[in-house]
C-alpha cells in the first residue's frame, strides 16, 4: 500500500448564522488520501463537502481538527508559513463554476501561467507563452485560444483552461469541487475522460467532489459519503456501490435514476428520514477498507 499523502483527522468547522444559530458544516470528519489514488467525496447540497475542500486548500481555517499534508500540519499557521511554497505549488484547486473562477479580463495564456508568475518559476519550456501553449495542448485545446478571454470560450473549454492552470505546476494533490456540475452531459463525459487520462499520465492524487454518483463510481478508486457534515461511509467504490451499509448511502444509491425504463420503474426508492439520523457515533471498519458510521451503542 502506498504512502498517505493527506491525512484529515477529526476535521470540524462551524458557520455562524445569526447570533445563536451555529451550523456544523463539517463535523469530526476523518479520512486519508493515499498517493496516486482518486478519492470521491459525495453528498447532497449542504452536506459540507465543499467546506472540506476549502479546509484542505487552507482557504478556511477549521475550528478543530488536524490536516496533515506530506507530514505538514497545514492548520498550524507556523508550519503553514514555513512550508508555504511547497503547499501552494503542490496543491491545486478546481472550482465548480469556471466562469467565476477565471478572471474575465485576463487572456487564457496569462491565466494558465498565473501560478508560475506568482512563484517566479522559470518555465520549463522556455517562455511562459510556450508553457501555456503546451499545457493547453495537454488538455485537448488548440493553442489558437491563447489570446482569447474566458468570455469567448464555451463552458467546457473554460473548465479545460482551469484544469490546465491547475496542472501547470505539476501538483501532487488536485482537489476538484464539483468540476462538471455546470456542464452539459456530452461535455461532462469529455471532462471526465480528460481527468482520468491526466491522472494516469501525471499520477497526482485526486480528490473529486461531486453529487453525481454514477460519475464517482466510474472515476474514483475510493468513495466517501457525507451527510449533514458527517462522513457516514467510506469504501472502495465498487464495494460501496455493491454493498452499501449506512441507510443514508442506501437511500442515496437507490435514488439515482437508472437510464433503463423497465428496470427503473420496477424499483422502489428507499427513503431516509433525516430525523432518524444519529450524528453521534464513530466510523468503524466492517470489512477491509470499508468504514461505516455506527452509533456508540453498537459497540
Amino acid at each position, binding site marked *: 500500500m502506498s504512502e498517505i499523502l493527506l491525512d484529515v483527522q477529526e476535521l470540524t468547522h462551524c458557520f455562524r448564522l445569526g447570533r445563536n444559530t451555529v451550523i456544523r458544516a463539517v463535523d469530526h470528519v476523518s479520512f486519508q488520501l493515499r498517493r496516486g489514488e482518486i478519492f470521491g467525496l459525495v453528498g447532497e447540497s449542504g452536506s459540507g463537502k465543499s467546506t472540506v475542500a476549502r479546509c484542505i486548500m487552507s*482557504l478556511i481555517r477549521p475550528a478543530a481538527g488536524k490536516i496533515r499534508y506530506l507530514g505538514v500540519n497545514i492548520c498550524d499557521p507556523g508550519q503553514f508559513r514555513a512550508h508555504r511554497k511547497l503547499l501552494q505549488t503542490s496543491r*491545486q484547486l478546481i472550482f465548480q463554476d469556471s466562469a467565476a473562477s477565471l478572471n474575465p479580463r485576463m487572456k487564457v495564456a496569462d491565466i494558465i501561467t498565473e*501560478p508560475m508568475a506568482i512563484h517566479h518559476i522559470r518555465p520549463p519550456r522556455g517562455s511562459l507563452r510556450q508553457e501555456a501553449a503546451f499545457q493547453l495542448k495537454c488538455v485537448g485545446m488548440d493553442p489558437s485560444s491563447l489570446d482569447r478571454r474566458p468570455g469567448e470560450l464555451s463552458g467546457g473549454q473554460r473548465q479545460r483552461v482551469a484544469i490546465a492552470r491547475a496542472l501547470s505546476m505539476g501538483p501532487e494533490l488536485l482537489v476538484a469541487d464539483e468540476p462538471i456540475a455546470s456542464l452539459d452531459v456530452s461535455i461532462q463525459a469529455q471532462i471526465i475522460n480528460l481527468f482520468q487520462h491526466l491522472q494516469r499520465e501525471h499520477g497526482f492524487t485526486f480528490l473529486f467532489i461531486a453529487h453525481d454518483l454514477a460519475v464517482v463510481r466510474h472515476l474514483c478508486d475510493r468513495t466517501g459519503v457525507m451527510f449533514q457534515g458527517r462522513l457516514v461511509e467510506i469504501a472502495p467504490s465498487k464495494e460501496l456501490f455493491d454493498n452499501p451499509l449506512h441507510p443514508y448511502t442506501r437511500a442515496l444509491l437507490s435514488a439515482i435514476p437508472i437510464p433503463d425504463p423497465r428496470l427503473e420503474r420496477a424499483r422502489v426508492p428507499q427513503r431516509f428520514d433525516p430525523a432518524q439520523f444519529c450524528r453521534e457515533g464513530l466510523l468503524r471498519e466492517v470489512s477491509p477498507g470499508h468504514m461505516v458510521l455506527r452509533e456508540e451503542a453498537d459497540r
Partner: protein
Amino acid sequence: MDERFVLIGARTPVPPPLPAPKWYDGKPVCSMAVLAFIMLGCLCCEVFLPKDPAYMDLLHAAVPPGSEFWFGSDTMGRDIFSMIWYGGRASLLIGFLSAAISAVLAVLFGAVSGLAPKWLDGLVMRLTEIFLSIPSLLLIVFLQAILGRASVWSLSLVIGITGWTAIAKVVRSEVRQLRNSEYVLASRCMGGGFFHILRKHLAPNFFSSIMFMVVMNVRSAIAAESTLSFMGIGLPLEVISWGGMLSLSEKALLSGAWWIILIPGVFLVVTLLCVTNIGSWLRGEGEQRGNNL
C-alpha cells in the same frame, strides 16, 4: 450506389466568417464628436477668437446677437462668443480636475473600507455618512473660506473634496464583491500575495466599473462649478467661466436680454449631455463585459 449516401463521418466544420463589427458600433459617436469639438474649441480658442473676451466695451453693453457680436454682448459689454470658448477652459478644467481629485479620494477611502476589518470599515462608513450629512453647499462655502480667494485650482479641490462619497461607496462594495470572487480565491489558493491580487485581479476589474462613475462626476463637477459661480461663491467675476457668465443674468432678466442667459446655458447643457451619454455608454459597456460569460 448514390454518391451522396457514402459514409464519411464527422468533419470539423468551417465556421462562417463573422461580419467584423464596425468600430463605431454602439459607441455614442455623436456625443463624442460634439464633446471633442467643444473641448478642442476651448483649448485653442486664441486662434479664432474675434474679440478679447475680457475687454469690457461699455458702449456696447447687452447688444443682441448680430454681425458685430455673433452671440451678443453681456451687460458689461463683453463679447459672449469669445467668452464662451475662453470660459469653457475654466469650466472643463475644473470638471476634469475635481473628478480626478474625488476619484483618488474615493478609491483611497473605498479600498481601505473594502479591504479593512469590519470595525474599521464601519468607522470609515460612519464618518462618510456624517460628512455626507453636511449640506454640500455649506461645506463648499466653508472650504472656500479656509482656502482663501477662489481660483480654478482651489475650486476644483473644493468640489473634488465634496464629491467623493458616492464613488467611495461604489468602490467599497465593488472591492468587497471582487475580494470574495472565485478567481481571487483561486489566486490566493495558488499563493498570490496581496499586491499580486491587487495588480492582476482587483485593479483591472474595478477600474472599468468605476470609470463611469468618474465620468458622471465630471458632469456633476461642471454643473457644480457653474452653480457656485452663478451664486457668487465660485470663481471671481474676472475669471471667465460658463457659470460666471450666467451670474450676470439677474440684470439680463430685467432687461429681457435672453441671449445672455440662453446661449452660455445651451453650451453648458450640451456639454453635460454629451458627458452623460458617454458615461452611460461606459456603464453599459461595463455591465456587458460582466455578463457575457
